[in-house]
């Protein structure tokens, strides 16, 4: 299997290198296997995968559908558990956490961005952004202030009171990015963030993600089947095929 601990050799931004060279990787996967329907019709979605992601990097996981991308995302997001192997994030073993601990982990360490935005339609943009803070028990005033601050970061402060249905796709995804950032998570997990957007809007969103990676020094793990996009944004690309790592490219 491919060796873990591949450090970033080149980064477009010099400042990212400084923050991306810690002694321990931020996310570390060791010999991860995930088998669905173990009893009836076993399906090996991930087969003995190991790799690590350093803090501050922008890592893309690419592969065709059925390659195991989504499974990998769910495991890193703490929404699923591996059949075998160990996932550590910032020194903590995520794969052994209880359901309660996992929700705390998702709330504090992970910022999720989805292909279909996944905003709650009954809430305003600001309420959507504030939602993760709601579960952590942050006082209402602070929640609202943070939400507005985040909306400013993504350039949508003027649309704070609008509901998702009143926003364009690109705007909705920006709200989702603001929501992912609001808890100041250890990393952002983006699942096909431009999959539902046209080219022009896609570029806006990828620029924003790139900006967040470089200027906020936020680690980003992006899942995509769009190889050119991955090449353009990432410091490293992990290619999956049939549940195994095919290649790891750093640039």
């Amino acid at each position, binding site marked *: 299997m491919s060796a873990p601990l591949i450090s970033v050799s080149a980064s477009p931004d010099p400042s990212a290198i400084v923050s991306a060279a810690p002694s321990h990787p931020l996310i570390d996967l060791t010999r991860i296997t995930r088998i669905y329907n173990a009893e009836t019709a076993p399906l090996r979605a991930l087969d003995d995968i190991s790799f690590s992601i350093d803090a501050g990097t922008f890592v893309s996981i690419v592969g065709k559908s059925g390659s195991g991308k989504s499974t990998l995302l769910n495991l890193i997001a703490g929404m699923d558990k591996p059949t075998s192997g160990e996932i550590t994030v910032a020194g903590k073993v995520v794969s052994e956490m209880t359901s309660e601990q996992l929700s705390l982990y998702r709330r504090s360490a992970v910022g999720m961005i989805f292909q279909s935005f996944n905003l709650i339609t*009954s809430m305003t943009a600001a309420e959507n952004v504030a939602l*993760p803070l709601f579960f952590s028990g942050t006082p209402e005033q602070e929640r609202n202030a943070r939400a507005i601050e985040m909306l400013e970061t993504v350039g949508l402060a003027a649309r704070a009171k609008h509901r998702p249905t009143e926003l364009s796709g690109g705007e909705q995804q920006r709200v989702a990015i603001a929501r992912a950032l609001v808890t100041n998570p250890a990393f952002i997990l983006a699942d096909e963030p431009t999959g539902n957007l046209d080219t022009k809007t896609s570029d806006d969103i990828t620029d924003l993600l790139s900006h967040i990676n470089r200027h906020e020094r936020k680690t980003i793990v992006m899942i995509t089947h769009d190889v050119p996009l991955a090449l353009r944004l990432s410091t490293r690309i992990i290619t999956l095929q049939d549940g195994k790592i095919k290649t790891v490219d750093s640039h």
Partner: protein
Amino acid sequence: MTFKDLIKFSIQNLFRSKLRTMLTTIGVAIGSGALVAMVSYGTGTQKNFTDEFQDLELFNTVRITSTRVDLSTLLSFSRQTTRSTKDQKPKNEVVLTDSVLAALRDAIRAETKAGKLSAAFGATSAEPIVYPEVVFPSKLQLDTIETAVMTEALPAAMASSPGYNQIHYGKFFTSDSSDEIVISEILLNRMGLDNPVAAIGKEIKLTTISLDVEKMLNYANAPLAFAGGMPVSEQQYTFKIGGILSKDIQKLSNGFRLIMPIETSKKVNRLNFLSTLDLLRKTQQMAGYQAIIVRAASQKDAERIKGLAENMGLNPTSFTDQFNEFKKLFLLFDMALGIVGTIALIVATLGITNTMIMSIMERYREIGIMKALGASDDDVRKIFFVESAVIGFVGGVVGIVLGWLTTRGINAVANIFVEQQSGTSLDFFYFPLWLVGASVFFSVVISLLAGLYPANRAAKIEPVEALRYQ
């Protein structure tokens, strides 16, 4: 998630499907309103009885009977407790004669002197009110109209007791041996007299029957002797109407009453038994009064006099004892009403379960999003739990208002008939504060139970699956 956040969030969620929430809440309100109305009818009825008894100072009454009255066996439905009367004298049999009555009066007097009983026995009586219970069948004749009536006898001292101290026409007899009687207005109306003022001083004729027990026993030994006629004689007495008990004094009794002074009643030949059992006893040389009544100044005094009578070997029962047994019946009555109301509420809360399940299905993906963003199973459970509770609380509060309005309506309609009958109005329903609190609490608890299953189901939703769901 703070509690305040949770409440706010739940209300926001409920407002998203206004119609559904409203319908479910109305369902709970109707259920809880039904429960409240039912229970308030039960408590209202009990209160009316208690108030009436209290007004009439019945709780100050001690009744002494010749045999022990075992209320619990009288009221129980068990057959084993029926006593066999044949050849077996009941335990604690006491013949209630005038000397027993005098001894009791002396004992009460002594106790009063010792300061252990209140000295006041009412406005007109410095003496303890102790009198035999006298009730006998008679025929009342006024002008040309006749009717059968049970005649009672009371001492003149009762003039100050509630019920007798509010005579609107004429007055209560002032002497125990007066020839004036007191009649109830309802009985007077029955006798064809609608103007009570004109009835005062009018003469009435009272016919009684008496039985020569000795003669009858002789007949029993020689049955053929019946040919000579029954050993029964009729006597007629003349009285004057001295006072009239007006209609509104006794709200709960329709009161066909004819009361004569106690000493006067002793001169009236009458049947001094009311049942065959009494007759049997009397032939066994068990002559005496049915019962002796003591009117005390307060309920506390009544209890003390009861103890006094017990020490004298008598068989006293205070009205409080009887009422406590009576209350058990009320409890059954209340329970029956409560069960009907509770069923209505439970049916309504099933609506909550249904609404919540619907809501979870609709918000399936949303629950997945919340979980992906870090909501724990517990957070999700709480959200749905609180939504159920909010419906239950609002439904409960609206239910009280609904129940109250309903009972006011029913009360108003019912009183149209009640007023026609007795001239007075009555409140059939009673809303004590505990009922208001308990019904809201109850509907919240039932709603939480209704939300238990949906909340747990929501908590168990797998985010990965829910996010895949379109």
